[in-house]
């Protein structure tokens, strides 16, 4: 289990504490990025067989698959950085809720299609900027993941954009529901750009991207879509957040229970 190692002194004669702390910071950064992608992928998977049309089932499944692929490489990398022998499956299936570091935006139920599209618009605009910047990370694996993901995310963003335009600038009813969905999701936007949890050294060393620096370019992708969709930029107070510190909404627990139960009930099962 991941417990903050810096809360207790490193064991005598153990690894160099400076290196240990640096890899702990990098581990936490990579895990947070991985968890955003993993939990979003799991929510996307919920839509399979429930989309408004067959093509939409396929689209959301594919978007989830891209995110899952990103998450897998990131989790495997986090395991290597940690150096404690945990692999991608250990990190995905055997961590408890408090050890997940994803933002609240991606973890909540999205069984309303408008909510799913509003969220995908915000999340993929952020993802597009994050991965574009991470391509020049000094961490070669992060740069490699980003180089692939940036092209995939362009398709996600475009998909969300098309639906937000269609629903926002559609009928009176579709406009009302798209606006309501946007109002709900907008509260969770700020947490994406919170930089308080990223160790400053990681940013200085060019490993991590300062999340705060992504706000302006990400919004520059979102705002023209809202304008064209005749939607109003919500004026709402940001939600409390806390995902980066392992504090989550009740809904994440249910998601993890479903995602993890097979591995936990049948440890080591293969097929």
């Amino acid at each position, binding site marked *: 289990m991941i417990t903050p190692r810096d809360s207790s002194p490193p064991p005598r004669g153990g690894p160099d504490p400076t290196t240990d702390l640096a890899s702990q910071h990098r581990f936490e950064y990579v895990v947070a990025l991985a968890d955003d992608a993993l939990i979003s992928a799991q929510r996307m998977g919920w839509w399979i067989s429930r989309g408004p049309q067959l*093509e939409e089932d*396929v*689209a959301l*499944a*594919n*978007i989830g*698959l*891209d*995110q*899952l*692929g*990103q998450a*897998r*490489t990131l989790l495997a990398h986090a395991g290597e950085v940690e150096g404690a022998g945990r692999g991608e499956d250990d990190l995905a299936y055997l961590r408890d809720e408090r050890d997940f570091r994803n933002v609240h935006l991606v973890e909540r139920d999205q069984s309303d299609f408008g909510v799913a599209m509003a969220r995908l618009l915000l999340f993929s605009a952020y993802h*597009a*900027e994050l*991965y*574009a910047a991470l391509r020049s990370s000094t961490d*070669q*694996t992060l*740069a*490699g*993941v980003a*180089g*692939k*993901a*940036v*092209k*995939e*995310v*362009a*398709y996600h*963003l*475009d*998909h969300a954009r098309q639906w937000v335009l269609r629903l926002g600038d559609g009928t009176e009813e579709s406009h009302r529901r798209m606006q309501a969905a946007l109002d709900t999701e907008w509260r969770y936007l700020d947490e994406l750009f919170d930089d308080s949890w990223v160790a400053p050294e990681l940013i200085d060393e060019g490993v991590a991207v300062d999340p705060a620096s992504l706000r302006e370019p990400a919004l520059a992708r979102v705002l023209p879509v809202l304008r064209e969709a005749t939607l109003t930029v919500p004026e709402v107070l940001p939600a409390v957040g806390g995902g980066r510190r392992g504090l989550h909404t009740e809904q994440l627990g249910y998601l993890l229970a479903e995602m993890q139960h097979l591995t936990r009930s049948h440890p080591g099962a293969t097929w």
Partner: protein
Amino acid sequence: MVISRRAQGALLHAGTTHAHTRAYDVAASVLDPELPVVTIEDLGILRDVTEDDQGRVHVQITPTYSGCPAMETIRTELEQTLTAAGYQRVDVEFVLSPAWTTDWMSDEGRAKLTAYGVAPPAARADTDGGPIPLTLSVRCPQCGSPDTRESSRFGSTACKSLWVCQACREPFDHFKTL
């Protein structure tokens, strides 16, 4: 073995060089499990094959999309095919960088896809996370008509989109440009 100019250019572009070893030729014969008419070399997934004097083979392949579920099958196929060809030990490594692009698909690969009923990707436009470039026309692989429309940007696998031909009314897959 003949490598098309496009494939050569792609390999040079990616900074990969490989000797035309027997191991390379064996690895290059492995078919893509989801599009079993094209080889992994046709698709540009096969990046490098090296062989040491102990007969050990190291193969590098790159996924098309991050979540491509075919990668594990391709790894198994490579191991089995090379083992059957007499190589004692085979390592298959996934490399992410440089990121795969449909530009690495060979001319033969494109022709085989068309014959199989999948419209091949257009020349690449570097999206850089920006807007998806409009595809002006995707030619119907059945009747050749350019009068086609996209019915869904996401298809049966991560790398394909769904199209319908307005001329012959047949639906078809298009290998997305990436």
